[in-house]
């Protein structure tokens, strides 16, 4: 019976990460010797340590009876915010600063609890103008103000 799920989950995560990195190092990288360490030597030592620490954390989860609430995960916000940053990354070059920031902010705004279309539009427009003034004109970042996507218009 696992009494602290959070500890158990964290421990398992560390074990998995250790196995992944250790596995890559073990199978794909030259390891070398203690004298001449290859690119795989140090990662294997670290991964080993990580697996051990992860195991200790899991083991402790059985002993400690200290259940702390994990709390709610805002799945919708998580998805929308990830989408916003992804859209920014993928399309900023094509869209340019004004449309790019507008779209990004609009998607991110939808992650809020209460969504009002007017608020979404105001926030997005404000940010688009503000970012363009600050980053395109003041700091002179090399992002086009209006991207090539609109150049056909």
């Amino acid at each position: 019976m696992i009494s602290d799920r959070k500890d158990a989950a964290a421990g398992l995560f560390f074990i998995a990460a250790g196995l992944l990195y250790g596995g890559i190092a073990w199978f794909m990288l030259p390891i070398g010797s203690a004298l001449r360490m290859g690119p795989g030597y140090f990662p294997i030592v670290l991964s080993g340590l990580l697996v051990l620490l992860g195991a200790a954390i899991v083991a402790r989860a059985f002993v400690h009876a200290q259940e702390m609430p994990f709390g709610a995960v805002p799945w919708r916000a998580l998805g929308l915010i990830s989408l916003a940053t992804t859209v920014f990354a993928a399309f900023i070059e094509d869209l340019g600063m004004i449309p790019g920031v507008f779209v990004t902010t609009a998607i991110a705004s939808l992650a809020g609890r209460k969504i009002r279309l007017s608020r979404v539009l105001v926030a997005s427009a404000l940010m688009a103008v503000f970012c363009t003034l600050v980053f395109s004109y003041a700091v002179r970042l090399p992002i086009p103000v209006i991207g090539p996507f609109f150049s056909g218009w």
Partner: protein
Amino acid sequence: MELFEHLGLGFGVAFLPLNLFYCFIGVLLGTVVGVLPGLGPLATIAMLLPLTFGLDPVQSLIMLAGIYYGSQYGGSTTAILVNLPGESASAVTTIDGYQMALKGRAGPALAAAALGSFFAGTVATVLVALVARPLTSIALSFGPAEYFSLMVVGLISSIALASGSLLKALAMICFGLLVGLTGTDIYTGAPRFTFGQFELLDGISFVALAVGIYGIGEILRNLEGKEGSAPVIAKVKSLWPSVDDLKRMIAPAVRGTAIGSLLGVLPGGGALLSSFVAYNLEKKTSKNSAEFGKGAIEGVTAPEAANNAGAQTSFVPMLALGIPSNVVMALMIGAMIMQGIQPGPNVVVSNPEIFWGLIASMWIGNAMLVVLNLPLIGLWVSLLRVPYWIMFPAIIAFSCIGVYSVSNSAFAVYTVTIAGVIGYFLIKLDCEPAPFVLGFVLGPMLEEHLRRAMLISGGDLSIFVTRPISAALLIVAVAVLFVVSRPNIAKRRQEVFVEEES
């Protein structure tokens, strides 16, 4: 007096009108960008870095120092006003600073941060001038073994930054070290842990990682709540601290400065550590300790002073040894390298005007910070009126632009997303990010020196204990590990964080 001669040389350089101008521009831009939520000192410096490219080395470093102080103050401002620490060091400032802001005392809190920082900056400047030179001469006796041990001390100290379990903090360090190794092996050129991604050959962008973990992670936590918006703020009473406030600031500022100056020299999170230690000490010794966590002005002054003193003295290991003691220093080193200056023992000999000019400009940067920001407190306080439904999308947009412009690649923005999501879940599992981030930064250097030490010693691990400096450093590491693992201290660390979260 050699000290005055050196400071004279330094101020002679720093007081040149053009250099003063660049310092001012640096502080101004640093504050303005740093005050934007989501853009901590790190992202701010990274974003403004290109502005310094065209300048000569002295000017560009002076301007960078200005940007650094400005952005740090900007970061404290967002910590106090919107409870968003721009970097781990200002995480403590949020505890009492934000409480003060909620009670309508944002003005005094901001003033306390500025004045405490200025006092600390003044003292620390003199200290750096005194200590940097002797330290530089020791630096040459630092071989790979010493560097390795030094970084181990830094990593172990970072555990003190993390709440909760020692095991988890250690695991986060290991995980950070591993992730930091992503890229190309600096010895053999072999690609490692790139998962077939071409962009990862040059390693993971640090700025992207930090923005993801601290920026996106924080927003997700805020959106967990029922309302998803910032709580109600009391009416702003007065913008300026009262005489009583000023009196209460003196002792914490002095103690904070002492702690910050000492720990700042320690590479690997010394400056970060200092604000936590200073806060804890104040809480234990203050006669107002009941007020801590509910808006005590001491709880803002002490960590801010410590933070700034530490920021100042953290230039010492960078200038003397060429190793970054915190993440911002890593960027400063990058900037110096871009100017053709290899940070290390040679700087003080080969570029004395840069060395002493930089030290003097630190103080000037601090002074300008006060001059610039005290009149602007009213303006910053008015930022409190920005509703959260604008604030959090703005943070996301700023973060995206910041990261994209720093690396000029879409890949870095994807990194923000991934780091944000993984970081959020790890924090939910009570795994603090600070040790991870430090491990990430130090990973490649730790390996480089370990491998070199092994080559020099013929594969004999005892090199780390037979060389006196290295042995002493390892003893320190073990001592720190012992201290942080003692149950009562661990409990106390937890207290600080529980209060911060509530």
